[in-house]
């Protein structure tokens, strides 16, 4: 009964490839996020969707494109992968309202670009 699930957990791919990471939440939350965690453990927001609408789009290369087919899903597609894209990508969800920021995180997708 995983609340926020991401697939795949590990992804090793060559430079220049295109890959996708999927995220699903079964908490009934209305907001979902993608965070990137670098090798120094720093967590940085990339995107956020509220009720399927993009509300946060930080300075991220155009090669990264999120898609939210419904409130429970937020996928991340990455084109023309580069070495610097290697990181752990976390999906999270929350319910907007009184406590909008109490996130539930997935277990992460470790992306390695070789």
């Amino acid at each position: 009964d995983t609340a926020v699930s991401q697939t795949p957990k590990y992804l090793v791919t060559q430079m220049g490839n295109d890959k996708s990471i999927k995220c699903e939440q079964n908490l009934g939350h209305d907001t979902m996020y993608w965070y990137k965690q670098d090798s120094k453990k720093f967590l940085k927001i990339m995107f956020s969707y509220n009720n399927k609408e993009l509300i946060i789009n930080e300075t991220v290369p155009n090669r990264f494109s999120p898609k939210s087919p419904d409130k429970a899903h937020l996928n991340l597609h990455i084109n023309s992968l580069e070495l610097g894209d290697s990181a752990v990508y976390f999906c999270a969800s929350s319910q907007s309202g009184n406590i909008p920021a109490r996130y539930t995180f997935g277990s992460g997708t470790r992306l390695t670009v070789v």
Partner: protein
Amino acid sequence: GESVGLHLPTLSVQEGDNSIINCAYSNSASDYFIWYKQESGKGPQFIIDIRSNMDKRQGQRVTVLLNKTVKHLSLQIAATQPGDSAVYFCAEKGDSGYALNFGKGTSLLVTP
């Protein structure tokens, strides 16, 4: 730009001792703060949060203290256990009202 940071990147404590993890923030308009724990190979997990109209909040074995005057946040863990070994992040609610801005993280190592 505004940022959230930590004083100590690593902290080693003995089992049974109390731990204190510190965090400094720079956005004086921040009104909500939260602590997360991240164990190896897992995503961050919520520990405790606090609104800016409070200066202290207690949970089970954890206490968060907020000093708005000096823009400082701390997490106190009582009777630290080996299972508390993890990376701890403080975060503040960002300008968008939705996204959390995370600090750099402190690695807590509990030794027997």
